[in-house]
């Protein structure tokens, strides 16, 4: 049963599992995702809130993802572009997303810039941010400081490019889901949930436990298993708005 579940998870998230060696991380739960556990919890939460607030104000979606290592044979530019694309970071029409990828063990990072931000955050600026600002701090082992400064500079570069409407994609979808479906939607959901519970009980009860939480990480081995945070308290969750990436951006190794 557990194995079947793992296969299911791989099937759902492993769409780009082309050459066997490559693994694709699932969609991030938050804006700041420290899967490698290199940033203190409070700091990570503060940065997450900052990026969520930035989306409310400007509609730009900026996501940070810190992994232990790359699970791919291709180069970082290509791999991270496909991940950013699959996460749909940025709003659909504006394509205003940016993702800072960091792979700690590979000592590599890359800023992927969505089509709509290539003007505000050109390759040279992205390179300047990783090479001159983040890299020296990472070399000194100061991950939190490097990420803080990097985020600061990215936000500075792209602020003013677009205007927000006070809510993130996730907040908007939540609002429309509760108002749009009405009681009928609720009843359907109730039936679906009951059916799942029934099915689960008939098959022994366990195996579906992962479905309740905000992330399904059980099938993922050591690579991405760290949690960024739970959705309790003041944590703002992230949902991609439908942005798209064309290979813009730059990166450094340290």
């Amino acid at each position, binding site marked *: 049963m557990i194995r079947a579940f793992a296969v299911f998870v791989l099937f759902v998230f492993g769409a780009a599992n082309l050459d066997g060696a490559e693994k694709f991380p699932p969609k991030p739960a938050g804006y700041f995702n420290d899967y490698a556990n290199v940033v203190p919890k409070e700091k990570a939460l503060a940065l997450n809130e900052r990026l969520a607030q930035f989306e409310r104000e400007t509609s730009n979606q900026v996501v940070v993802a810190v992994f232990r290592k790359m699970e791919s044979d291709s180069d970082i530019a290509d791999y991270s572009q496909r991940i950013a694309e699959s996460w749909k970071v940025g709003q659909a029409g504006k394509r205003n997303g940016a993702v800072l990828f960091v792979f700690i063990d590979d000592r590599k990072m890359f800023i992927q810039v969505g089509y709509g931000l290539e003007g505000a955050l050109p390759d040279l600026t992205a390179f300047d941010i990783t090479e001159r600002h983040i890299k020296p701090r990472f070399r000194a082992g100061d991950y939190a400081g490097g990420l803080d400064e990097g985020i600061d500079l990215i936000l500075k570069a792209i602020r003013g490019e677009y205007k927000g409407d006070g809510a993130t994609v996730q907040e908007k979808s939540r609002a429309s889901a509760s108002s749009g479906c009405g009681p009928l939607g609720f009843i359907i959901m109730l039936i679906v949930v009951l059916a799942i519970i029934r099915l689960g009980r008939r098959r022994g009860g366990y195996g579906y436990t992962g479905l309740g939480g905000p992330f399904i990480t059980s099938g993922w081995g050591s690579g991405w298993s760290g949690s960024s945070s739970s959705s309790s308290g003041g944590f703002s969750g992230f949902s991609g708005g439908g942005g798209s990436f*064309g290979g813009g951006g730059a990166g450094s190794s340290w």
Partner: protein
Amino acid sequence: MKTFLGFGKVIVLASLFSLTGCGTYNRLVTLEQTVNKKWADVQSVYQRRADLIPNLVSTVAGAANFEKSTLTEVTNARASVGQVKLDPSKAPTDAAELERFQKAQGQLSTALSRLLVVSENYPQLRATESFKGLQVQLEGTENRISVERNNFNTAVQEYNTALERFPTNMLNKMFGFKPRPFFTAAAGAEKAPEVKFDFSSKPATTPAPATTPAATP
């Protein structure tokens, strides 16, 4: 007899139409437009690279006794790329045409990567701000090229598949939809280039003067 055959054809077509509906036709039009749009994107990233080259060449040429042959190779490859310009608004239907385009671009890729390798021997040049900047821009452009080529191939695949499906495959000839050729994976980029530029050969049939810059920088 003749009119009867004609009538039969009409019946067949009508029944095909009712089977597939106008939706199929509209879908093909949309898919074809996507292919053309992606083709335009491919063209614009290649153009972006071509536009970087004069700057790169002049920066590198300024370095003391930089290896001349490498520079000439880049300049020549850039010139031959200018000669196989295809219509940027319409994806090619001829596989040979696309191959010629891809080959010319592949030679430019090889020449550029060789230039970057050779530049390793010139630490002073590599230390300059302008060279570093150009290198970043060049890398970014290569990344964009690979993304747009992939997107183009995906669009072509979707379009070609739709064309070949029954019963669309019986209608597409009538409406003049033609399958489109793909980019092949990194062709020419890995092979050592034959440095032989045949400038006497005719350029591509479709001239696109609006976006064509001067062929030789």
